């Protein structure tokens, strides 16, 4: 029972991290209908920049803030240079542009940071405590605390503010939103900034959680998060978060107990295809 609960808590943490990466992807998909694979590259860059700032200043706060700013700029750069000019083409064109971007940025990380796995020896300033005989380490409580905070903040921004209203309007119909006086290109850029800044936080958290930062750390999340936004319902942010948490818990428990001979990445896709055949619009997606 204790082992089960520990596995469950680890699964929740992995799910929370998936949720933070998937969030940016779901936001971008909602607003541009583009599969933003290069989002995983932004997440990798986030971990590298965070590590670089942390090792020179030894301040985790500065590392997180600096990395968020850097990634926000990178996200906007990708949007302005790659996606916006390609919007009028069929969806596979920006998709290939995105994949080329992912490869180029991964390679750049390898050239700058070296091919080896770098440690991220930071201690997160969060308390560790025991509940019912189960130790929740400071890393775990940091993952829970930060991801819950980020999710709440994003929920507030997208539902309660004027910016969120503009984002929703732009995602429903860009032309109409523009004619109502919304600067839709600016809204798109802000969406990329928010998503990319959250990816930076996720990158740093993953780096600390596994104590590993390496150039291809984005490769598996790049495609797994695609499966997650599909399962959640394309463009549905709550659906994506739900799917991410379910996958994190599900794969941890399945690997731990069922002894299925397939790797966890294949499981994610099998689950995805099963959900799609059952509900083609995704878990929480509306019919379009």
């Amino acid at each position, binding site marked *: 029972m204790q082992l089960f609960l520990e596995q469950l808590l680890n699964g929740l943490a992995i799910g929370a991290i998936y949720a933070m990466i998937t969030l940016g992807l779901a936001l971008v998909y909602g607003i541009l209908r583009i599969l933003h694979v290069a989002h995983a590259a932004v997440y990798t860059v986030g971990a590298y920049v965070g590590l670089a700032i942390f090792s020179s200043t030894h301040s985790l706060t500065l590392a997180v803030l600096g990395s968020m700013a850097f990634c926000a700029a990178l996200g906007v750069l990708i949007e302005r240079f790659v996606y916006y000019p390609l919007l009028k*083409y069929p969806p596979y*064109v920006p998709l290939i*542009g995105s*994949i080329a971007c992912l*490869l180029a940025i991964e390679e750049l990380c390898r050239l700058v940071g070296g091919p080896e796995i770098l440690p991220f020896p930071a201690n997160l300033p969060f308390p560790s405590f025991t509940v019912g005989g189960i130790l929740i380490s400071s890393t775990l409580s940091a993952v829970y605390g930060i991801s819950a905070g980020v999710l709440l903040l994003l929920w507030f921004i997208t539902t309660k503010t004027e910016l969120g209203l503009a984002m929703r309007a732009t995602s429903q119909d860009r032309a109409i939103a523009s004619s109502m006086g919304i600067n839709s290109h600016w809204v798109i850029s802000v969406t990329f900034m928010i998503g990319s800044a959250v990816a930076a936080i996720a990158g740093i958290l993953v780096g600390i959680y596994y104590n590993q930062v390496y150039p291809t750390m984005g490769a598996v999340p790049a495609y797994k998060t695609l499966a997650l936004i*599909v399962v959640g319902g394309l463009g549905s942010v709550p659906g994506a978060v739900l799917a991410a948490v379910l996958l994190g818990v599900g794969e941890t428990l399945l690997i731990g107990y069922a002894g299925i001979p*397939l790797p966890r990445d294949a499981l994610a896709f*099998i689950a995805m*295809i099963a959900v799609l055949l059952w509900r083609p619009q995704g878990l929480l997606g509306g019919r379009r």
Partner: protein
Amino acid sequence: MSDYSITIGTFIAIQAIVACGLNVIVGYAGQISLGHAAFFGIGAYASALLTTAGGLSFWTALPIVLSITGFIGLVLGLPSLRLKEDFLAITTIGINFIVVSVFLYVPFFGGALGIGGIPRVMLFGERLRGTPFFLLCLGFLAAVLLISWLFTRSWSGLACFALREDEAAASSMGVSPVRFKLVAFVLGTAMAGLGGALYAHYMRFISATDFGFPMSIMFLSMVVVGGMGTLWGPVLGALILGVLPEVFRPLTDYRMFLYAALLLLMIRFQPGGLLGETSVARQIFTRLKGGHGR
């Protein structure tokens, strides 16, 4: 030609065959597929197993290999009838991951060790290697191009074009989306299977990692860079993306970065492909033709 350029040429010819198959699905029928390497792999594994464990020759195994890949293409093409665009794109990624992990984790397919000792292709009592095998691949490529060309002229091809442009309009005119999408899937995946069989008998050793998702991206990039839906586009794309890494080889460490950056620039500034309708090459060509006409 040196052994080195023959080797590169053989790989390019094989990849061009697979890219032509993808072009039938994506370019002609308009069904996005990001898992084409899975069928390349299925062809390679089928041919490898039939010629090693099954004891058949390459030529007797080939029809069986093509039917197997075509049939699996038919089955895995079924989701395309229910799913549209982005959903289909991600589903095909999923199919690629699942097929690779089946190859990797099921002992029947050799697991992580792959399959070795695949015999060379025999033709007129000769073991084909080097230049003769390269010529064989070129011959198959020519056949694939001929079939693609015939397909664009056939009723099925025209039906696929109609479905690609407007599915609702085409089906209201009595063109069955189910039938012609599946025809395109079977034809395209069988071509991938052919490429896979040639690859297996050229390498003589295959393992699951040769057919992963990055390979699918390569094939799609070839089709898009060359010009989707054009006859020669996939061949040109395979040539460019096959030669580029060799040109960059002296740059060792910067090679993959330059490759990715160039792919990004090509997509960014020639999104219709080098032979596509709005491409620079096409514009120059029509201008030349127009100049002579007048």
